[in-house]
């Protein structure tokens, strides 16, 4: 039997499957027993109460969806009071996603969240839906460094930095997060997209643009996972469009030590436990002794012998 455990810094997860922030809540426990998951990742919480974006907040695209939920939040105090105790019984490690407008606020939020029952903090420095035009800390290395360094100083909990696919400098951002003390990276959040209702000539979302998620995002997120994993020494957690066993394997092979499943849960709420089973079966069948042997096992491309000769076709 394959050893499915995976190490994310000082944290050891029973298996590599966990939900993506914002696509998961306790209600999923009505569909399956959540204790089977490698970890539990909450919807992003902000320190103060805040509303979300105007509706409509979701629409379909080819192979996926756009969302502009924003970060509606009841605030950290309500979270600590109502949510943290609720998760204690489930067993799987609780990862709390936080967001803030400044590095300082991020630090304060992290400090507040540093309580028994919280296993790690995921810093959502990449939400494209709260800042105008998709701007976020994770767009640039220096703002990433600042936010992560401030959070690092404020908590001893394992710290995950969730990166953005909207940046043109992913490797630099990844290295900045590592240098600032992140224990792991999550690649990635949603990519900023737009959809228009041709009949009304209005944007399909109340917030105009929204984040692309689902299978349409996968090749981009997989490329970024591979780039991040080959740029830093800390573990990378893959996220983006994962919906099948082979999707999970692609991310692991590209260098992810674990993966997050988001949008696919909306189509198949019982998907995560099925993926755990299927990954285990596949590893057994392939004789993979430890999941860790798969991580980053990407082989070089296998070019046909003469294809490297740089000659134009006739």
């Amino acid at each position, binding site marked *: 039997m394959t050893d499915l455990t995976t190490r994310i810094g000082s944290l050891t997860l029973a298996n590599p499957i966990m939900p993506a922030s*914002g*696509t*998961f*809540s*306790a*209600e*999923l*426990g*009505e*569909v*399956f*027993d959540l204790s089977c998951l490698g970890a539990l990742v909450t*919807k992003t919480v902000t320190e103060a109460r805040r*509303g*979300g974006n105007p*509706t*409509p*907040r*979701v*629409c*379909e*695209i*080819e*192979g*996926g*969806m756009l*969302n502009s*939920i924003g970060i*509606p939040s009841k605030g950290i105090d309500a979270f600590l009071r109502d949510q943290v105790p609720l998760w204690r019984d489930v067993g799987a490690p609780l990862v709390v996603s936080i967001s803030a407008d400044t590095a300082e606020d991020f630090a304060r939020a992290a400090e507040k969240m540093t309580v028994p029952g919280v296993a790690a903090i995921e810093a959502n420095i990449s939400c494209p839906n709260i800042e105008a035009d998709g701007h976020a800390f994770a767009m640039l290395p220096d703002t990433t460094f600042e936010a992560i360094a401030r959070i690092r100083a404020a908590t001893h909990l394992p710290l995950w930095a969730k990166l953005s696919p909207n940046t043109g400098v992913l490797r630099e951002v990844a290295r900045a997060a590592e240098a600032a003390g992140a224990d792991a990276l999550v690649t990635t959040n949603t990519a900023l997209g737009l959809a228009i209702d041709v009949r009304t000539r209005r944007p399909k979302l109340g917030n105009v643009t929204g984040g692309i998620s*689902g299978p349409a995002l996968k090749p981009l997120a997989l490329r970024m996972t591979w780039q991040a994993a080959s740029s830093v020494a800390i573990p990378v957690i893959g996220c983006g469009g994962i919906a099948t066993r082979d999707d999970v394997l692609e991310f692991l092979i590209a260098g992810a030590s674990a993966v997050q499943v988001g*949008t696919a*849960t*909306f*189509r*198949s*709420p*019982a998907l995560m436990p099925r993926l755990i089973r299927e990954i285990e079966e596949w590893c057994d069948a392939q004789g993979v002794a430890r999941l860790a042997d798969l991580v980053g096992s990407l082989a070089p491309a296998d070019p046909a012998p003469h294809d490297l000769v740089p000659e134009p076709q006739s």
Partner: protein
Amino acid sequence: MTPKVHEALVEVVSNDAANADYRLLHLAAPDHILDCKPGQFFQILCPETGAERPFLRRPMSIYGWDRAQGRLSFLYKVSGAGTRALAGLRPGDRIDVLGPLGRGFTLAPDWRRLLVLARGVGLATLAPLAAEAQRRGLALTAICSARTPELALSLDRFRAHGAEVRLVTDSDGTSDPARVRALIEDEIAGPGVDAVFTCGSRRLTSLLQEIAARHGLPGQIAMEQQMACGLGMCQCCVRPFRRDGRIVHDRVCREGPVFPLAEAIPEAAA
């Protein structure tokens, strides 16, 4: 939490046109997804066809269910990608449904006479109330509004469950607010009404809110909103409600789809 919402692959028994716009889908469903309440819904994974690739599930009110026979039914209006895909289903095909979901209608033990006011696809949502009323021995009057008599749905469903049906239509001018108001006031003044029920149509909602408030009648309303998860996880389906003097945002899939009538904020005209 013990699992109680189920994803099930179920077989299509029939899928026929109910009238020019609507189709009725009967499914052979396993017992464990049939613990339903009127006003609840399922999230249906509409099939991918050559022409349509609906990505998100579509919420559909439970139009009927029968545990003894293992039947689950939906009434839908063919409008966009998801319902066009549904329209192509043939007996023997299978589809994936998730449910039952949401909070349905609640009936207080002391109510004796119910009044339903519905139009369009809202009739699908409200029809199961008639069966429930009959089971509990309550009287129910259904005021069904439609563009034309041919487009009125579920009249037989309501009647079969002992409801009194009043059809009002645009084509004969009986559906305008003043006439409908008179009908309702007559009902209240005459046999009496203990609670009112409606769906999300703006005009009907405003009308019924006003009448119910004036008479101090309790009311319930089934609302709609775009959904992604249907379970309460994604926060996309919120709507504003008036509660305790302020505006709150509730999830239609979770706190609803049925809400206290007095709290509803009718949708702006499209």
